[in-house]
């Protein structure tokens, strides 16, 4: 039998999803061998995540956003043509024609052409620096404009307009939003919600102009352009983004005679079939019951329906979808559920408006008060998950619905509806259509944490909005199956990290083998060995390369450098506080030059030398140690850097000597192993140039002493530290830090940063204050003594190592030859050396140890 040819026009989010569904549906059977699939895109790249598009401005690259790649398509036999627009559909001959003249015949044709931004017909709208906000190319052009602009305007105050506004803020422009309607986000929000959103946006410096119709864009006096409004007012700007809505990209279908809706959109039925035989339409170009769905979740549903239909399953149908949304716009939480404009007859509402905290919540309920019709939340969207489930599952409201939006006080019983109350059909993840039942099934099949759940169901891997709810369902399911949510470190020890730390401390255990005999089984593994090595180091601060410890250390600790992707290591000398003499800098430069090491200033305000081979490390470190440098412990779960500003020594605003104090602190805690790495920041005044609030320990100088912040974090989940205590003297500060640091070492989980530890600490920062300041556990004397002993036992591991010929034996690539690793290859870029491995693996940071 000859293969069925499927042609997919458009490789956007939905076109790709359809292809992926085809591949996944057939996995394990005969693959796609019965099909020949070819897809065309007008864009220059394969599908990427448009939903996350704005992250482009916070550093994501086109690669990060991509949803697929050449390999995946090649492996599955999918053909694709980029940069080629399909310009004609010939139903009689069952083929399509592209702009480049290519003709492809089809058995099934899928139109996934998406939509295009509507640009209002304002004279002057087609000049340079006038943009739309839809593709990566658009964002690149906006960034380019940003470089030569001071002021930017977004025309359109809807959801996308606000996102575009955020982009302009990120580019550092004075930002204005111009909206024709009398309020922002008119589709999703009611009047009260729109008004509060506006106030919040204005507070962050974005100027909002509502009720303005732009009549023309002409040359400006102070800026590049001047926009004139119908009411006679005007606004000057250098760059403009149009975000006045989207229109279905239906031109191709229209020209070929397929049924099109009155206001555009390719008409489809419940199987997403169009009026032409064997032709489907899905995604934002499709019109279902006179409705265009401008969100991915419903569009993904359509993709699924069509893949199933082509595979012969006609049971699955598209039956509409929910348009609820929850977003963070310009840092403000906004959510809208169901119908919010009072169109439902007899509907009544509850409103909660807190002008002080700037929270607005409105609940719209049916005439009999039993069902939820819609809801608007601004400023506090915690109730979203609960409300959405009530709406989606058409559940009966609790007796006192107002409690759903009133702030909950601790004494009252929580009104949040427990996940147990949800029916199995409840949709938990709408991006991937995962129901509560699906999660239960996954758990029954052995999935026991979020990682497993994500890989087996894909839940929470799209927009991520459902993650908290998915976790709740998972935990409740595990609990109901009688699983204790286990905290064992691995199969070799039935103890948590904290318990192991207690055993080691109380029984004064000094080696892994003793611990294993006392309370473990098997040989150990890559999880427990480094964790135990780390605890041993935290309590006894032995040299980490003692024979007993060598086999326990991860490669980074084992060779005292961070392994890079090609197997070479990085070299980071400690530069306390970031202060370095010219001579010191010269030595680092000379060493880097001699060993041809790639040199970079790190995000931690010191210098990293990359590309050192195992056999080169001792010679490199000898040079550095001789010049007075010590190891920077960039490889250890230990103190990393104490970042400081110059403070009162130079800065005209500095009120304390931040740099001097930072250097003291760095020298005090250097080398100390802890459950995860620890960073400090010290700022000389409240301008906070050292970004101290983003560090584990943050110090800010005031006229009255130091303010100590604790639990800050950059990285994957940035968090500002909580203010622990104010107006501290140097001495008080050191004492508190000693105690908190050791208390963290005693009780945290493996690889748990202080931020997460603090968040999981029952009683939070207040409990911590009670322990540290009031000594409520009566352990402070012990904690201080432990810290003192650690400080006394400090050694520079590199110095110890280069002085011991036995230890140096391991710093060779081969045990039986002096040759270097022949597998290494380098290339030169920007006058420095880089590895040329094929290895472009992207790894999940959470899996790192």
């Amino acid at each position, binding site marked *: 039998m000859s293969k069925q040819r499927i042609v997919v026009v458009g490789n956007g989010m939905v076109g790709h999803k359809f292809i992926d569904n085809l591949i996944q549906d057939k996995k394990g059977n005969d693959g796609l061998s019965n099909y020949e699939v070819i897809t065309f895109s007008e864009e220059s790249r394969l599908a990427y995540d448009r939903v996350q598009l704005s992250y482009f401005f916070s550093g994501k690259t086109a690669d990060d956003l991509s949803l697929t790649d050449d390999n995946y398509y090649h492996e599955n036999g999918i053909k694709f043509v980029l940069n080629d627009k399909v310009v004609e559909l010939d139903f009689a001959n069952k083929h399509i024609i592209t702009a480049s003249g290519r003709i492809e015949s089809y058995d099934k044709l899928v139109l996934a052409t998406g939509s295009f931004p509507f640009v209002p017909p304002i004279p002057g709208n087609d000049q340079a620096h006038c943009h739309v906000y839809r593709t990566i190319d658009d964002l690149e052009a906006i960034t380019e404009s940003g470089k030569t602009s001071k002021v930017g305007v977004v025309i359109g105050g809807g959801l996308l307009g606000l996102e575009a506004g955020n982009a302009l803020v990120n580019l550092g422009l004075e930002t204005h939003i111009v909206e024709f309607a009398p309020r922002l986000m008119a589709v999703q929000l009611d009047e009260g919600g729109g008004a509060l959103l506006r106030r919040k946006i204005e507070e962050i410096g974005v100027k909002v102009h509502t009720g303005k119709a732009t009549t023309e864009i002409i040359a400006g006096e102070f800026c590049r352009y001047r926009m004139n409004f119908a009411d006679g007012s005007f606004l000057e700007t250098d760059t403009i983004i149009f975000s006045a809505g989207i229109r279905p990209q239906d031109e191709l279908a229209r020209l070929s005679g397929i049924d099109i809706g009155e206001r555009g959109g390719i008409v489809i039925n419940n199987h997403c079939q169009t009026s032409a035989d064997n032709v489907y339409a899905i995604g934002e170009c499709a019109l279902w019951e006179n409705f265009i769905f401008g969100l991915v979740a419903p569009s993904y549903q359509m993709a699924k329906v069509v893949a199933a239909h082509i595979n012969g399953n006609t049971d699955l149908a598209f039956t509409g979808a929910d348009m609820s949304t929850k977003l963070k716009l310009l840092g403000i939480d906004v959510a809208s559920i169901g119908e919010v404009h009072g169109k439902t007859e007899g509907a009544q509402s509850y409103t909660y408006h807190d002008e002080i905290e700037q929270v607005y919540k409105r609940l719209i309920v049916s005439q009999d008060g039993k069902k939820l019709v819609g809801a608007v939340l601004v400023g506090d969207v915690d109730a979203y998950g609960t409300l959405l489930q009530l709406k989606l599952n058409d559940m009966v409201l609790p007796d006192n619905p107002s409690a759903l939006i009133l702030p909950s006080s601790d004494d009252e019983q929580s009104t949040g509806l427990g996940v147990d109350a949800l029916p199995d059909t409840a949709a938990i993840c709408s991006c991937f259509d995962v129901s509560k039942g699906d999660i239960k099934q996954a758990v029954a099949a052995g999935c026991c944490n979020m990682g497993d759940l994500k890989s087996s169901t894909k839940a929470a891997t799209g927009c991520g909005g459902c993650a908290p709810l998915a976790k709740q369902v998972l935990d409740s399911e595990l609990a109901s199956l009688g699983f204790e949510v286990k905290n064992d470190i691995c199969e070799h020890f039935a103890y948590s990290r904290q318990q192991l730390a207690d055993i080691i401390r109380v029984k004064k255990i000094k080696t892994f083998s003793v611990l294993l005999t006392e309370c473990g089984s098997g*040989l*150990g593994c890559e999880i427990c060995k480094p964790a135990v090595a780390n605890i041993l180091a935290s309590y006894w601060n032995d040299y980490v390369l003692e024979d007993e410890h060598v086999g*326990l250390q991860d490669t980074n600790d084992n060779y005292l450098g961070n*392994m890079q992707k090609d197997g070479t290591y990085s070299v980071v000398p400690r530069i306390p506080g970031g202060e370095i003499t010219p001579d010191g800098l010269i030595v680092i430069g000379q060493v880097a030059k001699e060993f041809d090491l790639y040199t970079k200033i790190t995000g931690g305000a010191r210098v990293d030398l990359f590309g050192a081979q195992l056999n080169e490390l001792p010679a490199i470190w000898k040079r550095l140690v001789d010049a007075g440098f010590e190891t920077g412990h960039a490889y250890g779960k230990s103190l990393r850097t104490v970042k400081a500003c110059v403070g009162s020594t130079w800065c005209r605003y500095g009120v304390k000597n931040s740099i001097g104090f930072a250097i003291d602190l760095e020298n005090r805690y250097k080398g100390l192993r802890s459950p995860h790495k620890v960073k400090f920041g010290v700022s000389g005044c409240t301008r906070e140039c050292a970004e101290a609030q983003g560090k584990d320990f943050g110090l800010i100088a005031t006229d009255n002493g130091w303010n100590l912040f604790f639990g800050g974090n950059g990285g994957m989940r940035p968090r500002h530290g909580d203010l622990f205590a104010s107006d501290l003297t140097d001495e008080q500060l050191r004492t508190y830090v000693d105690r908190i640091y050791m208390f963290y070492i005693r009780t945290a989980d493996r690889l748990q940063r202080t931020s997460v530890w603090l968040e999981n600490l029952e009683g939070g920062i207040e409990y911590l204050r009670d322990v540290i300041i009031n000594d409520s556990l009566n352990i402070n004397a012990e904690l201080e003594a432990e810290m003192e002993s650690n400080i006394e036992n400090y050694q520079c591991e590199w110095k110890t190592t280069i002085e011991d010929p036995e230890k140096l*034996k391991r710093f060779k690539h081969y045990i039986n*030859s002096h040759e270097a690793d022949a597998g290494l290859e380098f290339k030169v870029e920007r006058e420095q050396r880089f590895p040329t491995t094929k290895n472009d*693996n992207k790894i999940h940071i959470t899996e790192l140890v």
Partner: protein
Amino acid sequence: MMENNLNNTTWTDICTLSDLTPNAGVCALFNKQQVAIFLCKQTDNVYAVANFDPFGEANVLSRGLIGSTEDITYVASPLYKQRFNLSTGECLDSSEHRLKTFNVRIESNQVQLKEAS
């Protein structure tokens, strides 16, 4: 070093037992190949597998950690942590790759390697 010992039936001296690090690995050059040799003190076994990590695509496996799960003794790659059975070379986390293994023994304090037949 014996340069071209492609004879599969003879053992080649590599280093002395004391050159190995207990409960860790070293890399040896053998028949122009990089071989990772591990001495597991706890079970008194030596193992030899290819040093090339097929996932990370670098010569680093000798620098991985030894671990066990049930009865299997494995090495976890220092790059992305995939685990390989030290006796069979099988990857425990994916069927995509398998390491070549070598015969290894200790004869009067000498560590010796031989191509697996």
